């Protein structure tokens, strides 16, 4: 069989990305939705690393560093927020966040 090329990586990344997005759309639990978001970011990371490997350029990996850090910050903020919501509403079901509408 032929060797693994950039396009294979990109396809995998696209699949991962869509999985993450699907998770955000389908899952009811805020924390699981959050995992979906992380999955999306990591799909992008994988793509970046793959690109900079195949194009022999380091820029992609540099951006990956930033993405990882930003993701960590997002996680910190997001989890804190979710904990606050959980304390207030006693549930992490996203369907309960429906007071602001129309």
């Amino acid at each position: 069989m032929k060797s693994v090329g950039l396009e294979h990586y990109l396809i995998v990344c696209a699949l991962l990305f869509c999985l993450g997005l699907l998770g955000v759309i389908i899952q009811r639990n805020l924390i699981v939705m959050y995992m979906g978001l992380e999955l999306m970011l990591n799909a992008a990371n994988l793509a970046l690393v793959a690109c900079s490997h195949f194009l022999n350029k380091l820029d992609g990996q540099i951006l990956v560093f930033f993405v990882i850090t930003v993701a960590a910050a997002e996680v910190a903020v997001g989890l804190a927020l979710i904990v606050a919501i959980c304390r207030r509403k006693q549930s992490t079901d996203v369907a309960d966040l429906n007071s602001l509408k129309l």
Partner: protein
Amino acid sequence: MAPLALIALFLPLASAVAIALFTRRNASVSAGISIGASLGAFLISALIFNQLRGATAPETLNPNWLSIGDFKVDFGVTLDALSQLMLLVVTGVGSAIHIYSWGYMRADRSVSRYFAGLSLFMFSMLGIVLARNFVQMFIFWELVGVSSYLLIGHWYERASAADAAKKAFITNRIGDFGFLLGILMVWAALGTINFSSIADIMKANPLALGALGTGTGLLIFCGCVGKSAQFPLHVWLPDAMEGPTPVSALIHAATMVAAGVYMLCRVFILFTPEALSVIAWIGGGTAILAALMAVQQNDIKRILAYSTLSQLGYMVMAVGLGGPATAMFHLTTHAFFKALLFLGAGSVIYALHHEQDIWKMGGLKSKMSVTFWTFLIATLALCGVPPFSGFFSKDEILALALGHNMPLFVIASIVAVLTTFYMFRLVIVAFINPAKSDPASHAHESPSVMTLPLVFLAVLTIAGGFIGIDKLYEVALGKTELGNHTVAMAAGLGAFAIGLIAAWTLYANATADSLTTRLGAMAHWMRDRFYFDECYEWLNRWTQELLATVADWFDRWIIAGAGVKGLSLAAELGGGLLRLMQTGNVQTYALLIALATALLFWRYIL
């Protein structure tokens, strides 16, 4: 001259600001400031006119007010015969009405707000008159709309007043939308929006507007249709009568509604023959439609409102027939006598404690003699009876129609008949017939602060035809050849006679509208004038009543319903539907975002 004009322009604004900021508490001071500002503006206008005598002043003042790339707007004033005379009319009539208001609104709770609005209106109106380019005019155009909105809604506690105000503004916006488009097209085609340079270009090359000439003209005309309440956007004017009567006199009879006609004359050179014919027919249609409607009204102010509509139709028709000078002349005289009519009506309403139904009035001839005589003078002027000013202008219009467009001449003559009919119906029922209600029998003359303006305007109404206003307008706007004067005069006077006789036979001593309750009360004297009576009764029932009802129905359901309501309704409906997208559920949002992105991908990438 220009600095003087600017002072005249900004005096009312200053007074409006002063009232709004400082003297909101003290009614009389506010009134004093406002009246003073308007009088000052009047004096300055008189001064300017005295200096220039209709000669066009050099446009000294035009700083580069706004320049965006090749788009230059300068803020300056135009001082030719047109604007000078218009200045005099606006400030003169305006001052009279300011003074009158001080008496009429004395008991009102928020006199200061009223006078602030009045001053704001004066400022905007003068701005329109003095504008020397489209943008300037459009800005003041909008300001006039706003101040009219404020004044119509003065008694906002009444939901009807607030709704009328909103309706007026919205309807005007529909016209202004076209107006704005027209301005943009003019600029796109000619590269300038200054009236003077537009005139030069059009003189040099009448086809400068190219293929879109007619369309552009009609878009510009849309502004006039909205502001001057022409068919099919005339629906707002009768409702605007919800405002205080002096406001109706100033804004919705004398000045603002005439702004559309003024604008047409200002840029008359822009209009192609096709556009002009459309304008003429719309004017004629409005005139006859409104006259028919007036016949069936019982509210004194509504009768006057519909008559205003039909007179505006006259003016627009005159413009369309290529006689801007004639139109402006009629505008001027109409400003005099229609303001006088409204102020008289206001004095009656004031005396009868805000009773507006003419069938509850009567016997006022003796009790309110000043009001009655001035009202009568104005009525005669409106019906075009010599030697009152209305006669001259109306006669010119009829002659113009006779000279250029026979069908329109016939329509104009019929309108003349109807005008006389409903005006004398009003006069007879409200003034001459015996009193039919308690307040009417105990009515007495209004205070002199209200009657003096009446007299002043009456003098103008009488003199208006002789002081050579028409000559000045012809100087400014060029003379257009008229048809046979004697025929026109005969038609006018004949129309007056028919209408007068009809009204008299039907309404003398009538206690109710004889069209409906004709039998019984009228039966015993029917025998004497049997022939006329039958004739007119048949005429009235089978033509006027029918036509009026049809026109009224059309007006109420097709125009107001489909036109104005429809548009706003569609917008609101769309908003209500789109709003449902905001379900408040994050995952719905995420799903929609994902779908939209996928859609964009499918449309543009794959």
